[in-house]
């Protein structure tokens, strides 16, 4: 190879990765980073999107949102919905993973159950919403079973009474989301070296001691990273709530995403909606930074 040829080859090698990455970077830059800048600038304008000559509004829209009790209610509902979901996803996922991992069950049964336990995860949020609306109809099957068991005296309107609506949507979301934890924890359980348990057996450890001192510490990295991801994704919930309750009754299930959507596309206050969208973005970014730092530290 002549020197000239080699340097041309070297140049090619230096430029090549950027060329391979360019379509992706173009799309992410134009359709993700630029819109993020746009939505921030909308939030500081009067009548954004709707008028071309929109004027600077300062912090007006942020003040309007922070003065709105519905915004604070939405924030609280989002937190309740998300925390309950993550905690129960983790608990149910852990219990199911431990049960499936037990050597007391026959391997064929284990495989069949594993496939069936994952099923709720396969359904689209809209379909989950429709299924739970049918189940929790006042004349539906859940009420009729609970009444037959004598647990409730009269039919409960799960999604349409303000006392139960938020719990009902949270429950539906818990049902739909635990398999992510289950699958990840099951993979984690299979990665714990068997000699840890054998050593504990020799020391005469009880089952619960092995769980607390071996299993849970070994699974901790998975628990933390899945919890963070689940938290970020659950916080962004929209279709499930939109289809089951639409945020009602009387704002009792309003969450940040439905609040923002209504501001934008029901009252066409796109500036104020942008301010609310920026608040959601900031919360997400904060949690994402936490997630990335945690992943890097590992």
């Amino acid at each position, binding site marked *: 190879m002549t020197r000239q040829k080699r340097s041309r080859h070297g140049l090619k090698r230096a430029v090549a990765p950027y060329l391979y990455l360019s379509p992706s970077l173009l799309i992410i830059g134009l359709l993700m980073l630029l819109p993020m800048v746009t939505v921030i600038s*909308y939030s500081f304008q009067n009548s954004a999107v709707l008028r071309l000559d929109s004027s600077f509004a300062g912090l007006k829209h942020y003040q309007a949102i922070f003065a709105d009790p519905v915004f604070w209610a939405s924030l609280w509902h989002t937190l309740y919905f998300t925390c309950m979901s993550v905690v129960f996803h983790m608990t149910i996922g852990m219990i199911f993973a431990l049960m499936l991992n037990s050597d007391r069950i026959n391997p064929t049964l284990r495989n069949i159950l594993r496939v069936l336990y994952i099923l709720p995860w396969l359904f*689209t949020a809209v*379909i989950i919403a*429709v*299924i739970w609306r049918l189940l929790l109809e006042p004349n539906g099957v859940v009420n*009729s079973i609970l009444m037959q068991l004598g647990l409730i005296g009269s039919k409960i309107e799960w999604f349409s009474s303000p006392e139960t609506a938020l719990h009902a949507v949270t429950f539906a979301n818990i049902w739909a989301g635990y398999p992510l934890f289950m699958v990840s924890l099951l993979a984690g359980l299979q990665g714990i070296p068997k000699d840890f348990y054998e050593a504990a057996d020799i020391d005469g450890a009880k089952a619960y001691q092995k769980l607390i001192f071996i299993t849970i510490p070994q699974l901790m990295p998975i628990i933390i990273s899945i919890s963070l991801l689940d938290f970020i994704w659950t916080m*962004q919930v*929209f279709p499930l709530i939109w289809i089951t309750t639409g945020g009602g009754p009387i704002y009792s299930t309003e969450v940040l*995403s439905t609040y923002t959507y209504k501001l934008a596309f029901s009252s066409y206050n796109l500036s104020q909606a942008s301010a609310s969208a920026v608040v959601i973005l900031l919360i997400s970014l904060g949690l994402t930074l936490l997630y990335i730092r945690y992943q890097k530290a590992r």
Partner: protein
Amino acid sequence: MRKRHTTKDRLITVALHVALVAGLLFATFPIYWMLSSSFKSNTEIFALPPTILPKAFTLEAYAAILGDPVKLRFFFNSYFVAFTVTILTDLIALLAAYGFSRFNFRGKGSLNTLIISTQTIPPITLLIPFFGLVVSYRIFDTYVALIVTYLVFTLPYAILLMTGYLNTLPRDLDEAVAVDGGTSWTALWRVIVPISLPGIVATSVYTFLLCWNEFLFALTLTKSTSMRTVPIGIQLLMGQHAFEWNQMMAMSVLGSLPLLLIYLIAQRFFLAGMTAGSVK
């Protein structure tokens, strides 16, 4: 070592199996109820006491869905958008993943972090600027609007998934091509692509699912009934025919079919796609 035959031991095994059955009921009863309701008449769905198996088995709900061109169009739209986005995502993500996996360059680490962090950007935040863009480029209520906006959400994860896969392939393979005087482009198509099929399948499965499930953008960026996708179709059905529950369930079953089939046929790829981002 194991004392299998003590009474206590047997009791634990029995208790475990009882718990497994309870778990199974929790996980599958809602799905079973959707399925069985789709084969019932509307009056039987709310019969007292509830009928576990359809007493009068009927396909009328399926006939109503499949015989209605408006509803078939929802399915066509969903398949069309999902397949198009999947092909585009595979292609673009493969190129990026090849760049990440086979080259060292300035800014690689920060670009990788950027791509990881874009995965968690809330869709509702991008919705408002997308709405502005889509209206000003006059692509409101078109396939293009959906395809372009879906791409933004499928791409980051697809890149990570594909990079992970390419990293498992030995470098000697494409270095052999370089020794023979071939460019990295030839190495990509002659050597890497043919052996990357499992990675491409996992990425495709994941991308397809994401598109098939998408609701928020389809709701906002399309308007006419002929442009709506399955999730929006189900919502429309709910509003229009005040509670034709059997049809709603039949449409939900049909709408879940592609996901269920992919899961049952390609479980390995499915789980790889769904958990790769979170476990790594």
